[in-house]
């Protein structure tokens, strides 16, 4: 009797563990379905056209006469901010990872890793605040811009936010290269730099790609910092000193004012679907790159 009860308890607990195990999958699918569900009624909406959504830069969701729902300018904003930030973050992150993993003595290495970790812990709203108060001041002083909240400001913040991810994942990738590779290179008379450049970079290529991709994914999805620091104009930027609005910032700025079930509200959810798909593709490719590396 007691034994049967124990068996039953075990079965219950194992079922619970299995349920929790697949919970992450349930949540990811659930997020996608829920966000899709709210956007779904757009299908029958005469005011909304999918081609206009992707190809128009006109976004007048609250206009009385001509409502327009084009997010092209926001897509351009998202990608310009993110790509500019990656141009800064990828080389800086990889360089810093090379220093930490190859040139640094063990004791300072631990301290530097802790500092990078603290950098990663800074909340995005604090970055946004720093963008409003610190970087915007610097941009006005050192460039010709009249206003400091613009594409450059957003990109600098995003670079600083995604750099810790790149550093720590790239450092892991360097660590995963077997020491025998380093020893073989040193035995041939290579300096540490030659070893890094000719041996470690090619050997850790997949891990480094995944690091940059995950940093990219983080930067695309970032909301508060770009909402506060990138200037909010719905235009396609022509220079790095132009203000932009990203897809994420657009949702954050307008969701509060869009009444539930309105077309405006549904279009914002559709933007959410688009963002979900973009980050999904980026993260999935990072995951596949990591997997390929593990297998080889």
């Amino acid at each position, binding site marked *: 009797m007691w034994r049967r009860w124990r068996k039953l308890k*075990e079965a219950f*607990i*194992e079922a619970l*563990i*299995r349920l*929790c*195990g697949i919970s*992450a*999958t349930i*949540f*990811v699918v659930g*997020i996608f379905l829920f*966000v899709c*569900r*709210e956007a779904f009624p757009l299908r029958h909406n005469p005011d909304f056209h999918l081609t206009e959504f992707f190809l128009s830069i006109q976004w007048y969701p609250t206009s009385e006469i001509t409502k327009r729902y084009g997010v092209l300018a926001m897509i351009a904003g998202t990608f310009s901010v993110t790509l500019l930030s990656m141009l800064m973050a990828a080389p800086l*992150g990889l*360089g*810093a990872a090379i*220093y930490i993993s*190859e*040139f640094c003595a063990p004791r300072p290495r631990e301290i530097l890793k*802790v500092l*990078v970790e603290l*950098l990663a*812990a*800074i*909340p*995005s709203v*604090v970055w*946004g*605040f*720093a963008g*409003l*108060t*610190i970087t915007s001041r610097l941009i006005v002083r050192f460039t010709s811009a009249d206003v400091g909240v613009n594409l450059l400001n957003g990109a600098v913040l995003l670079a600083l936010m995604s750099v*810790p991810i790149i*550093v720590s994942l790239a450092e892991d990738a360097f660590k995963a290269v077997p020491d025998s590779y380093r020893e073989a290179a040193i035995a041939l008379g290579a*300096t*540490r*730099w*030659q070893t*890094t450049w000719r041996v470690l970079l090619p050997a850790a290529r997949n891990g480094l790609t995944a690091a940059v991709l995950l940093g990219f994914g983080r930067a695309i*999805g*970032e*909301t*508060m910092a770009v909402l506060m620091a990138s200037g909010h104009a719905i235009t396609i930027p022509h220079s790095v000193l132009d203000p932009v609005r990203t897809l994420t910032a657009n*949702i*954050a700025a307008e*969701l*509060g004012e869009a009444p539930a079930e309105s077309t405006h509200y549904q279009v914002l*959810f559709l933007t*959410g679907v688009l*963002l*979900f798909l973009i*980050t*999904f593709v980026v*993260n*999935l490719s*990072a*995951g596949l790159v990591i997997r390929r590396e593990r297998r080889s």
Partner: protein
Amino acid sequence: MNRFATTPLVQAKLRQEALASYAALGMLVCILLPLFGMVGDLVWQAAPSLTWQFLTTAPTHGMREGGVRPAFIGTLYLVTISLAVATPIGVLAAVYLTEYAQDTWFNRAVNIAVLNLAGVPSIVHALFGLGAFVYAAQLGYSILSASLTLAIMTMPVIIASTREALLSVPRSYREACWNLGASRWQTIRAIVLPNALSGILTGVILQVSRAAGETAPIMFTGAVFYKAIQPGTLLPYALDEQCMALSMHLYTLSTQTPGVAASIPNATAVLLLGLVFLVNSAAIGLRTFLRSRGK
């Protein structure tokens, strides 16, 4: 002549080495300098407002004066509830992934889902929270909706660090326990989880720091600009009420409150940073202690 004299070739090589080393160091400095610069500037600007009263009084005069007590308590509420929800689910999910899952296509999909859940943009989590908890589950704009959204968002942190902790428990421990006739769950409960406890704790601590700083997911699910609370009580909010939160407070102070003294948003930012750094240092300290004990 000295046989080991450095030839021009070797000199060039060493010069290149030194150059590369300094370049890499320079890149690292480029990353860390803003960290110190920013924290220094925030603290400097915040100095006039950094008093004990700031933490214990409510904002007054349309948030232009006074402190942040309701926001601070609101953040504690959100963090505690999301922690209570995310910890058990996250830990058990990690147990499944390390102790039960075989390498099948299904479990590969689960692994990819964990990676993707960590990558979903925070604003999409907000949309989900709004659609699922506020409207579909009819929890309304409330602490509960906001906490549940935060819990889902921060769960991957717990899964990742618990998993690492479970993987570091040697397989021989489990085998020894199985040989004594213990079942799978008994082994996990008696051997694996206690040995991984500290690693799990690190994950939980990191979850706290992540949840405390998030703004976008709570902005549309339960956090408000301003809410008056009973002074003097320790638990002023009910779970179906909206609340203030530090991160949200910083956002509204800096973008939607004209004429506020610079020191107040700065002090809020410093408080938020201090909270997050304190929590993270605890996690780092715990990890260092464990590593030194493990050696």
